[in-house]
């Protein structure tokens, strides 16, 4: 049976462009990393040496791509959820006119997946093109050997497939909200859907605490092993970080809304702040996903920066000649910069998602904002309200991510070089932390400026009339 058109449920392409954009960035990122890995390994082979470096790079790149795709999936799930939430009224009408919830949900998934596929393919091709141009220049300049480099690394094509599949799964998760529209709501004419009051299941709670507990133990063990030396400690630390990180992600709904509520309480108690605080946690599921996307990004960047910073601090206490000291320091510095930039892409994906969720949720509240204005909110107060909501969310994400990253980074460094260093060394990468903070502020402005301008540009009467 032919299902309903996806744009009936999902709206125009414009509303789901975040899905395409995020899939595109992931595709481009994957493609560039794969091209780089291909470049290193073919260059090494052409030079007649082992291509162990290429293999290692491929593995590392795959891990980074997987993380980026995961963040993209979180963003897509949230994007779909937000778009559909704004159309529940129309969905209720469609249900009343005879559409069943399942086929509407399928239509959402189909629409979002198509957009993601287009984005991913475009991104992969773009990334490959960038790789090809850079490589051609390097070969022409003689910096690289001539060799049979891949114009489009096969793994990039695989990445496009994986991104699309991840988007489909994410769209399915995000479209759960379709089920909240009942046909009877169409007759009520009430635009406010009942809130999502689902609580975390027992299994999920158990998994959360189990994974965090187990991961934590592994991390402690890894730190202890680091005192003995050998590579096992670091691998164990990576494993522990992944396990505990997964636990934190699964259980984020338990704490993130509370953290956001706490952060927003610090904003003040005047009416705009109070409304902002309530809005920030109105949809716990969406708040959590919107925040966790950023948390993953910030954690990754902080982990790498803090880890390398701790390594550098540790290296200062080592018994090295001044020349070795400088060399080690420089090597660590450059690697740190490159790694930080490479993982920062995940943060960028999360940031795109954050801005989009914020804008959409403000657009959907046009009527409500009109009401506030009619009740006496000034345009300035509306702006302040939206900005504060954005601050509460991003500050929570940045704070949470930084704290996690500092712990992971220090534990990672300890597990790697603990035996050569006295005590436990914390890495506090001041520049990077400041950079993240600045990026956070910019993000808040980007996420709140445009929608709040649009919100106050509409006359209150008009906003109230708009039945959506």
């Amino acid at each position, binding site marked *: *049976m032919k299902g309903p058109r996806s744009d009936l449920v999902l709206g125009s392409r414009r509303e789901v462009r975040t899905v395409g954009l995020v899939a595109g960035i992931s595709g481009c990122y994957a493609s560039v990393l794969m091209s780089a890995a291909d470049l290193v390994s073919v260059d090494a082979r052409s030079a007649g040496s082992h291509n162990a470096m290429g293999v290692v790079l491929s593995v590392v790149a795959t891990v980074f791509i997987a993380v980026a795709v995961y963040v993209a999936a979180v963003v897509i799930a949230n994007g779909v959820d937000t778009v559909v939430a704004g159309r529940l009224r129309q969905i209720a009408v469609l249900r009343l006119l005879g559409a069943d919830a399942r086929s509407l949900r399928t239509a959402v998934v189909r629409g979002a997946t198509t957009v993601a596929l287009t984005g991913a393919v475009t991104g992969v091709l773009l990334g490959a093109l960038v790789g090809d141009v850079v490589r051609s220049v390097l070969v022409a300049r003689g910096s690289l050997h001539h060799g049979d480099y891949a114009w489009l690394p096969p793994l990039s094509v695989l990445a496009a497939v994986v991104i699309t599949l991840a988007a489909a799964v994410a769209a399915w998760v995000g479209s759960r909200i379709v089920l909240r529209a009942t*046909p009877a709501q169409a007759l009520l004419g009430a635009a406010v859907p009942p809130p999502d009051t689902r609580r975390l299941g027992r299994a999920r709670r158990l998994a959360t605490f189990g994974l965090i507990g187990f991961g934590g133990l592994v991390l402690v063990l890894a730190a202890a092993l680091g005192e003995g030396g050998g590579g096992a400690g670091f691998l164990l630390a990576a494993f522990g970080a992944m396990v505990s990180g997964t636990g934190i992600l699964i259980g984020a709904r338990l704490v993130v809304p509370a953290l956001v509520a706490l952060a927003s309480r610090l904003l003040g108690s005047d009416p705009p702040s109070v409304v902002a605080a309530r809005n920030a946690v109105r949809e716990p599921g969406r708040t959590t996903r919107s925040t966790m996307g950023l948390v993953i990004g910030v954690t990754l960047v902080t982990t790498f920066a803090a880890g390398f910073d701790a390594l550098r601090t540790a290296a200062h206490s080592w018994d090295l000649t001044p020349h070795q000291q400088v060399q080690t320091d420089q090597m660590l510095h450059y690697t740190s910069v490159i790694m930080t930039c490479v993982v920062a892409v995940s943060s960028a994906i999360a940031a795109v998602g954050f801005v989009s969720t914020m804008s959409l949720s403000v657009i959907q509240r046009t009527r409500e904002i009109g009401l506030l204005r009619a009740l006496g909110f000034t345009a300035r107060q509306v702006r302040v309200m939206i900005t504060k909501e954005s601050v509460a969310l991003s500050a929570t994400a940045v704070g949470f991510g930084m704290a996690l990253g500092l712990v992971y980074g220090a534990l990672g460094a300890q597990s790697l070089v603990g035996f050569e260093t006295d005590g436990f060394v914390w890495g506090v990468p001041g520049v990077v932390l400041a950079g993240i903070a600045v990026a956070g502020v910019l993000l808040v402005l980007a996420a709140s400026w445009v929608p709040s301008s649009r919100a106050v540009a509409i006359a209150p009467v008009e906003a109230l009339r708009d039945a959506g």
Partner: protein
Amino acid sequence: MDSSPESVVSFHSVSKVYGHGGGAVRALDEVTVVVPRGGFTAVMGPSGSGKSTFMNVAAGLDDITAGEVYVAGQPLHQLDDRARTVLRRSHVGFVFQSFNLVPTLDVRENVLLPFELAGRRLSAEQQAWVEHLLAVLGLADRVTHRPGELSGGQQQRVAIARALAPRPSVVLADEPTGNLDTRSSREVLGLLRTAAREYGQTIVMVSHDPVAASYADRVLVLADGRLVGDHGAMSPQQIAELLIGFEVGVA
């Protein structure tokens, strides 16, 4: 108890209770009524009389506490959600107070929406019927317009075309003139009456407006969840007096 083939909607001792214990509200209280095929029935009553519940139950949107409801010969009270969706899809049309057109679809696409949602292809006969409806409702030269480009009265005519297009067993109209000015209201009510008289379309309209109800050829009156009046066609004045009588009686 069976429903005769000529009855499109029938309620047999239907009760609907919200809540329980001391706070229970009987939105429908032992309502028994049969709406035969063809004809335009108005359901009237003051706010809180059970009009909306009547509508929701007839549309299969709300479970009942006791009694039996048949729509198009099928026992709604025994069907699950999925079966009710299918029943609504093939036997019930809706006209709302707030039009509820899809803003991104043009007039023709809106009218064809029920077919699309059901995954049905239009037969030549249905195609001709849709074109006929669009012409009769004065929408023929607006088929490519979006709802936003139409007046309220025109939007409601599109909604009527959408409700009539699949030839449902019954069209349920919920305050269809609630958002319209006087002239558009008269137009819309005239069209509903025409649909009942000329096409034999069964229409059940919920309204609290005596003028709207005067277009119907049968007026049911609900008060406190009970069916307290079942009249033939009446003038607006008669209906208004009847309603005022109940309001005063209640107070």
